């Protein structure tokens, strides 16, 4: 196995939760507690957990949006913590984040063109083929109508706005995309479309995902490997089918058992009925 693209070792993040007075010790909350993980090139590592598990904090540490309390992050062989100036700039280009709420993470006063080309301009990189053509191409790739490049985020539906967020991440051709609950706020039909899009883009581009989510059914559709977090720690890591099919940790088992499910026999019956319907239609036609 080759060197992983990203390797986080013994990550720790503590927050001060109270005690800002002159007296009294500040209480500390350990949101991320000794977390180690690897993301390999071209794979999707899903980080799952319930609220307060520390999964989003871990994502922010890796994106260097907040500083670590302890531990090391290595990306493509370089120590992320030590990056400054130009190197840090380059890192921000190689690692992109797609957030949960597309509307609040896109500037409402900017057009799609401006939003999508902003990462390049911020990095002082040329826009290949000019801003207009570049935007049109990106919009097509994420399944948006390229004629809408002069529109504002509010003119798009939730799923479309999330596609804009994805296009923005793609603009700098990143090696790693951190999707932080990127499909959680979407309606189920739109969610399915965005999941399909994320998978297709990965097949085409070969980048990696760090996919943060609380929804295990969604994770199962997209992950190569899964890391389960609980109370700041990773309790289990493994290949997707192994974690879902043969969970080792009691917490993982509890989590999986709690997922509501449509009865498999109902699904089977539906598929039978669906086939019968199609056959009837074909026979009729």
């Amino acid at each position, binding site marked *: 196995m080759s060197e992983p693209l990203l390797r986080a070792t013994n990550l720790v993040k503590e927050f001060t939760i109270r005690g800002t007075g002159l007296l009294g010790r500040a209480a500390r909350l350990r949101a991320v507690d000794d977390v180690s993980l690897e993301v390999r090139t071209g794979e999707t590592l899903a980080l799952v957990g*319930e609220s307060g598990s520390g999964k989003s904090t871990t994502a922010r540490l890796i994106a260097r949006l907040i500083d670590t309390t302890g531990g090391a992050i290595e990306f493509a062989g370089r120590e992320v913590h030590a990056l400054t100036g130009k190197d840090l700039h380059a890192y921000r280009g190689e690692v992109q984040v797609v957030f949960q709420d597309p509307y609040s993470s896109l500037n409402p006063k900017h057009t799609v063109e401006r939003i999508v080309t902003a990462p390049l301009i911020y990095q002082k990189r040329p826009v290949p083929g000019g801003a207009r053509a570049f935007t049109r191409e990106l919009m097509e790739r994420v399944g948006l109508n390229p004629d809408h490049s002069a529109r504002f985020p509010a003119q798009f539906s939730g799923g479309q706005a999330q596609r804009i967020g994805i296009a923005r991440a793609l603009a700098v051709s990143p090696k790693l995309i951190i999707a932080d609950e990127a499909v959680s706020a979407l309606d189920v*039909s739109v969610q*399915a479309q965005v999941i399909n899009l994320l998978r297709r883009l990965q097949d085409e581009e070969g980048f990696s995902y760090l996919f943060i989510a609380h929804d295990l059914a969604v994770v199962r559709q997209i992950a190569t490997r899964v890391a389960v977090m609980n109370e700041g720690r990773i309790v289990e890591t493994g290949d997707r089918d192994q974690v879902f099919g043969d969970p080792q940790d009691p917490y993982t088992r509890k989590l999986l058992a709690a997922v509501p499910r449509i009865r498999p026999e109902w699904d089977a019956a539906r598929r039978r009925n669906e086939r019968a319907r199609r056959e009837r239609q074909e026979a009729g036609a």
Partner: protein
Amino acid sequence: MSTATRDEQPLLRVRDLTVGFTTAAGETNVVKHLDFDLARGGALGIVGESGSGKSMTSLAVMGLLPKGAKRTGSIELDGTELTTLRERQMQAVRGDRIAMVFQDPLSSLNPYYTVGTQIMEAYRSHRTGVTRRAARKIAIEAMERVHIKDAARRVDHYPHQFSGGMRQRVMIAMTLSMEPDLIIADEPTTALDVTVQAQILDLLAEIRRDTGAGLILITHDLAVVSEVADHIVVMRDGDLVEQGPAERIFCDPQADYTRMLLDAVPRIDDEIGLLRTTSTEETR
């Protein structure tokens, strides 16, 4: 009314329910000509994506629509027409005969009062001549019934001292204290973690079993509704797409929209492949 007809009569009978708003752009209906029945002791699931009108339907039944909303059609509870009741009479129905559980338990509880006070006040406003002491006992019992440990002490705690799941239990205890005929739960587990969701769904099932109350579960989650409801109404953009027994809806959906929804749901235990979706997404 004889007992025979009473048994045949559904607990809730909704006919031609339409909810509309008058805006600058004109009249828009968010619920259109909705018909459904809820059998006595039954569990009805209303499923739909955002903007389907499912929450407006529940508020229309409660008579709690926002200002400016217009409601037409008929809503009968146990043979009593609710739409023609005066506000005062409707107050007697709310909480007492129809109780409601909302999505976000933290913001749905008043941060300034203990949970006990909030459970008691419903009881005391519906039952006259109840002493504080008696109401408090009812509150503690209700909290015990939703499995809140140490209820006698917890009754004096404030909402922020409870976890998300415990707060939703408090909300359910509030409805239980009144022994309502019908509980409407509007996305009761959407704001909760999956393990907590499972507990709350179990609790709702247990309460139905023990009290025989009817349940309307409003949700966007097809898996959740498949576990809870025996009858399902699918809504989209205010329209009734289709309705029927749960097994029929899940095994042999008739409407294209229902089939699309069922295809789009990611499964925890079924094949993994491209999720089937409709080809186009709506444009705003």
